[in-house]
Each structure stands twice: as structure tokens, then as C-alpha cells.
């Protein structure tokens, strides 16, 4: 039912796809779906599947979502299941956690993860730690989701990446999808997971279309949390990334390929638990590693990956020190030229790859 709706929403392309499927007997066609629509469909299907699932957050209902991710859901499910909250993060995050403790399965949206800082005590102390503190008596099946990291021109208070902050804490699962398929499969898994999941989206990715296979459009399409994906195979260097930076890594890899350098690009998909094994296996093949992230360098995601590589079997396979490509260690400036130079660009990735390979 939902895939039909998805097809209708995608308009002409979809109709063409259906026609192609019916009359020409070619293999099932993929569909172009934006990350936004993938998230929307995932939530729609999970709301339909389980009555205990509900969504709350600022502007999620009647406004259709600040970034339109929840478009149409309130119209379909009503006030009981799609709840507009006042601008009180600490309060509504706590309410969401309490509802999860009492048997519901809330999706708590933060308009951006910058605002989650107001509620971070509820995420960590009330949600993440409770199953442990209660020795298994009290579980908290909740998803905290929203856009994370840099956007465009929104300046310092609205551009922070929280992957490292949340990734630090036991008791949480932290997911960072890149593609539409990631968004769909991981959000469904997150909603079905019986534990607190922090789901880090990216505003700049919402409007980006991706081809989605027929299989990935099925209602029970789930991507397991904790498993990375190799987006591009290569032999010369392992490039590990998450979220929007995966796009830049693939673009950089395309440029490098022309010079005969084949990058293996790994899309982490999950920050915690980190799929160290996938990275190690790749490094043992390529002997070189760089990590690429939008967040700040100190105590970040890249720092953790490098430490794990040092401590694990892959260290002996490195032919050069592993390095991190990160956002610049400053609050995000506003002016476009400054902002552009505050986050990794394709040229920074290419430069770092070449430096690592020549070192």
C-alpha cells in the first residue's frame, strides 16, 4: 500500500516504472526517491504497522514538519499519533521517554540536534542508562531523530554535529544514514528496536534523490543497525565516512579513479555500535586509511576509528599513518566563503588521500 503511494508521489517516473514493469517484462525498475520521502514512508509504514508508534515534536503535525519530513502524516493519523509540542525540548523529550517506559514507542523529533542539547539529560540519563540501572527491568524503546550537523548559512548555533557526543554513551544506539535506502531501512530498524536510538539525519540530504531497488521498497525492508556498507570497492585506500560526507567521498573517488587511484569508500551507517570489523577488513586489504566527517576533530568519530585501528589487527597492515579529514576546529561562520572553508571539500579529501598514499 505504501509503495503504491510512494509510486504515486514520485509521479511520472513512477508511472513509467510501473508501465515498464507490467508490459515489457524487464527486471523490476528502481525508483528515484529523495531522502525526505524515504524517511516519510518509513514513518508512515511503521505508524501503520504498530499502534503504539507515535511522533511528537515541534511543527510535526499541522505544519507537516519543519523540513516537511512528516508531511501528510497528521492528516492520515490525526492528533493522537502525530503531536505538535510547544517549544520545550527538555519537557517533551522527557515526556517521550516516559511514554516509552510505559509501553508506547515514540519517535521524538528534534527540529535540529542543536536543540537536543536542551534535552540531553533526558536522552542520556533517563533513556540511555535506564535499562542498565534497572538491571533489565525497564526498557526504553524510543527514537530521537532530526537533522544533525552543518546546513547552509545557519551559523554557529545551528550547525553542530552531535555524532561524537551521542556516540560516546553506552546504552544508546546512534545511527547516521546517508542515502534514501539508508534512511528508510535504518529508520524502520530504529523504530522497531527496543532501545533508545539517536537517528542523525542531514538537512542538506533531504532533497537528494537516490535510486531505490524494489526490494528496498518493501514494507519489511530493514537495514541492521551496526553494519557498515561498502559503497565503492577499491584496492588502494580505505575512505570511511558517514552521512553527507559519503557523497563527497564518492565524488573524490571518481576524480581519483581517473588518476588510477582506487578508493574503497565505506559508508558507516551506524556510529554506535561502530562496525570496526568492516573497516579493519578493508584496511587489511588496502593498507591505507582516512576518515572523513563533518564534525569537529577533537574527540570525534574519526578519532575513535583511528584508535580502534591502532588497537586492532589492522594496525600491522598500515603502510602510512591513518589520518582524519574533519570540519575545521571553529564555530561555524556565516559568510558563504567562510562556511565553505569550514567543512571538508572534495579537494580536501583528494589531497588527504594523495598525501597518505605518498607518505
Amino acid at each position, binding site marked *: 500500500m505504501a509503495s503504491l503511494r510512494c509510486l504515486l508521489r514520485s509521479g511520472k517516473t513512477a508511472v513509467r516504472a510501473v508501465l515498464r514493469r507490467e508490459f515489457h517484462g524487464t527486471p523490476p525498475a528502481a525508483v528515484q526517491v529523495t531522502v525526505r520521502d524515504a524517511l516519510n514512508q518509513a514513518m508512515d509504514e511503521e505508524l501503520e504497522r504498530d499502534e503504539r508508534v507515535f511522533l511528537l515534536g515541534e511543527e510535526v503535525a499541522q505544519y507537516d514538519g519543519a523540513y516537511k519530513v512528516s508531511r501528510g502524516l497528521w492528516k492520515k493519523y490525526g492528533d493522537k499519533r502525530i503531536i505538535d509540542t*510547544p517549544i520545550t525540548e527538555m519537557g*517533551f523529550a522527557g515526556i517521550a521517554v516516559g*511514554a516509552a517506559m*510505559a509501553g508506547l514507542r515514540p519517535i521524538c523529533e528534534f527540529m535540529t540536534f542543536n536543540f537536543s542539547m536542551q534535552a540531553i*539529560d533526558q536522552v542520556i540519563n533517563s533513556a540511555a542508562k535506564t*535499562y542498565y540501572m534497572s538491571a533489565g527491568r*525497564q526498557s526504553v524503546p524510543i527514537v530521537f531523530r532530526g537533522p544533525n550537523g552543518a546546513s547552509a548559512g545557519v551559523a554557529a548555533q545551528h550547525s553542530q554535529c552531535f555524532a561524537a557526543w551521542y556516540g560516546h554513551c553506552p546504552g544508546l544506539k546512534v545511527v547516521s544514514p546517508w542515502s534514501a535506502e539508508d534512511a528508510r531501512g535504518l529508520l524502520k530498524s530504529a523504530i522497531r528496536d527496543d532501545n533508545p536510538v539517536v537517528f542523525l539525519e542531514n538537512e542538506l540530504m533531504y532533497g537528494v534523490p537516490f535510486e531505490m531497488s524494489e526490494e528496498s521498497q518493501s514494507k519489511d525492508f530493514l537495514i541492521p543497525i551496526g553494519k557498515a556498507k561498502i559503497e565503492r570497492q577499491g584496492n588502494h585506500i580505505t575512505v570511511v565516512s558517514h552521512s553527507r560526507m559519503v557523497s563527497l567521498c564518492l565524488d573524490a573517488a571518481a576524480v581519483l579513479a581517473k588518476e588510477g587511484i582506487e578508493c574503497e569508500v565505506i559508508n558507516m551507517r551506524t556510529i554506535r*555500535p561502530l562496525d570496526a570489523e568492516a573497516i579493519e577488513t578493508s584496511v587489511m586489504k588496502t593498507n591505507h586509511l582516512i576518515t572523513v566527517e563533518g564534525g569537529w576533530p577533537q574527540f570525534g568519530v574519526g578519532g575513535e576509528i583511528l584508535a580502534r585501528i591502532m588497537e586492532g589487527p589492522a594496525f600491522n597492515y598500515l603502510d602510512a599513518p591513518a589520518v582524519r579529514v574533519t570540519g575545521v576546529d571553529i564555530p561555524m561562520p556565516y559568510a558563504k566563503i567562510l562556511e565553505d572553508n569550514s567543512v571538508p571539500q572534495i579537494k580536501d579529501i583528494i589531497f588527504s588521500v594523495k598525501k597518505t598514499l605518498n607518505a
Partner: protein
Amino acid sequence: MRKMLTIISNVLRGSASRNGARVVVSARTYADFTPQATFDIKKCDLHKLEEGPPLQAVLTREEGLQYYRTMQTIRRMELKADQLYKQKIIRGFCHLYDGQEACAVGIETGINLSDHLITAYRAHGYTLTRGGTVREIMAELTGRRGGIAKGKGGSMHMYTKHFYGGNGIVGAQVPLGAGVALACKYLGNNEICVCLYGDGAANQGQIFETYNMASLWKLPCIFICENNKYGMGTSVERAAASTDYYKRGDFIPGLRLDGMDVLCVREATKFAAEHCRSGKGPILMELQTYRYHGHSMSDPGVSYRTREEIQEVRSKSDPISMLKDRMLSNNMASVEELKEIDVEVRKEIEDAAQFATTDPEPPLDDLCNHIFYNDPPMEVRGTNPWTKLKSVS
């Protein structure tokens, strides 16, 4: 006739002691006791309410004995915890509830076990009234595997069915409680949530955020402020611009009542529960109560208040004495009978303390368990890269 019976009872008791038996024999039969009595209780101060709880409460003999037993159990359990803490058998934080027993017991008698309750860290009394046993509470305090949280939570993190702790972060439990109430309304189960906090927490911003949403969405939530006059070492006058905590909910109706009188608390809770169940939304209760101990075991409790003040409350307003006096002066129980209960309670506490001090600590392979629910077993990094520990749900 009564005098003769008393004489006989004394003689029998005397002979029983001489034989070494510790049983107190009461020759008076149940038929001698008043089965129930009606008591005047203090009027509640009302905020945005036309009428309040009734001014009289009916107490049956059975109820009275049960309230007495439970309050006495909490009292003795807390005093035993004090002892064990001073012996360094309990460590870390220990916030004792003695003096406030009428709140926990009165509230529980005004709701059902199928309702929900959440409180802050002064939670041992509630863990008991919500279905925990003295044994598992004490063993949790001493950090043993038989503890209610297997020794992994400690004093501030105890849970039972429909009791969500035990919360260490001041004020955080209030939005949680409203969330539980939201689930009750969502699921349509006619259950309510009692959400407790102290006079110190009452100034927290997240509580006002919660008042707003609970009222907007008409959540079946009873907010209860246990005002024991001191937030740690700061008296209410020094912490709050308005100490009328029952009015701080503004648009939420409120009552202020004597939290030392278990009947007052019971009637007010029944009134509040009815308000919530009828779909009128949240309501706020302020219980004026007192804690005999300091804020926690590391606070002697006399640097910010006088010993005279503590003594005065003990002699004039003690909740257990108040109930005892009521029952005795209305012939609802005998001195011996209540003493018998005291002895039984003392024994229960002793047994529990014995268990709590002899039960082994949790096994080391439980260290990394209970990270995730319903997940396959996973590895957890130990203190160094070569130590990989196992974690199961």
C-alpha cells in the same frame, strides 16, 4: 469487665514471659475493638478548585493496622539503613525518608497498584509501597545480587511494576511522569500517573514545561510536591520567590494539605485521582511534610535547622504517632497489638538486613549485561584493548 480482662491478660503475659516465650498474649478479642471510626481531617487549601476533598475520613480497624504496619516498616527500614551506612556497609548516596511515611502510604491507599508512580531519589518508601520487599530494597542498598536492581542501581535507582524509580536528576522525573500519563491516556486504560518532586525541584524549568503540556493535553497526571521545607540545605524561603507550591501550577488546580496525616493524604489523593480519571486533566497536590534526617547521609541536617525544630515535629506531628493515638483513643487497637506489630516489623527488618549483609555481590560477568533489551549478545570493551567483555540482554 474490661478491667478484669486486662488483669487476666497481664497475668497471662507475665507467665508467657517467664517461660521465655516472646509472644505477647492479648486476651482481648476483636469484638472489643471499634471496627471503624470517622475522623475530622484538616481542610485543604485550594487553588482554582470550587471544592476540595472531604473534611472527614473513615478509617476501619484493618486499614489502620495496615497503615500503621507499613509506616512502621518504612520507618524502621530507613533507620536500619542509617545504621548500615554508618557501618560503611551501604555506600554512596542514601536519602532517607523517615518522617515522611504518611505521604507514601497515604498516596498508595488513594490509588491502585495498577496506576503508575514516579518519584525522585528519596525513594525507598515508595519502592516498598509499590510492591518491593524490604529484603530486595536493603540488598540493593548494600549492592548485592539479591537487590531489586541486582545491585546495579543502588539507592536512587529502584524499580517495580508501574514504579519508574528512583531518579537521580532533580526534576527530570516530572516530564517522565507526564509521559507515563500520556501513555495511559493513549492506551485508554483509565490508569493515572502520580508524579512526585520536592520543594527543591519545584523551581525546575522542566517542571513548568511539563505543567504546560500536561494541561494542554489533559494528561491524567497528579503532580505531588513533597514540601519538607528544605532543598538539601536551603530552606524554601531562600529558594523560591513563591512558596505556595500548590499554586505554582498556575492554570492547574491545586491543593495544599498536611502531609503528616495519612488520612489527609489518602482523601486528597482519592480526590485528585477522581479528578484525573474523569478526564479533567492534571492536578497538583502539595504535601507539607518533614524529614528527620538530613538531605542525605552525608548531611547531619542540623547546620541549617535547629535540633529544637526537629524535636518539635517529632513530638507534635509524627505521622506514626498520630495514627497510633487516633486508633488507641478510639479503641480501634490495643497497645499490645501495636507493640506486636512493632516486634514483627523489627524482625522483618532484621531478617532483611541479615540478607542484605550476607548475600554475595553481583558476579563480575554481570558487569556488562543489560545494556540493550532484546538484542543478541555483544562484546564490550574492557579497560584495555585486550579485554573484551560479554554483554547479554
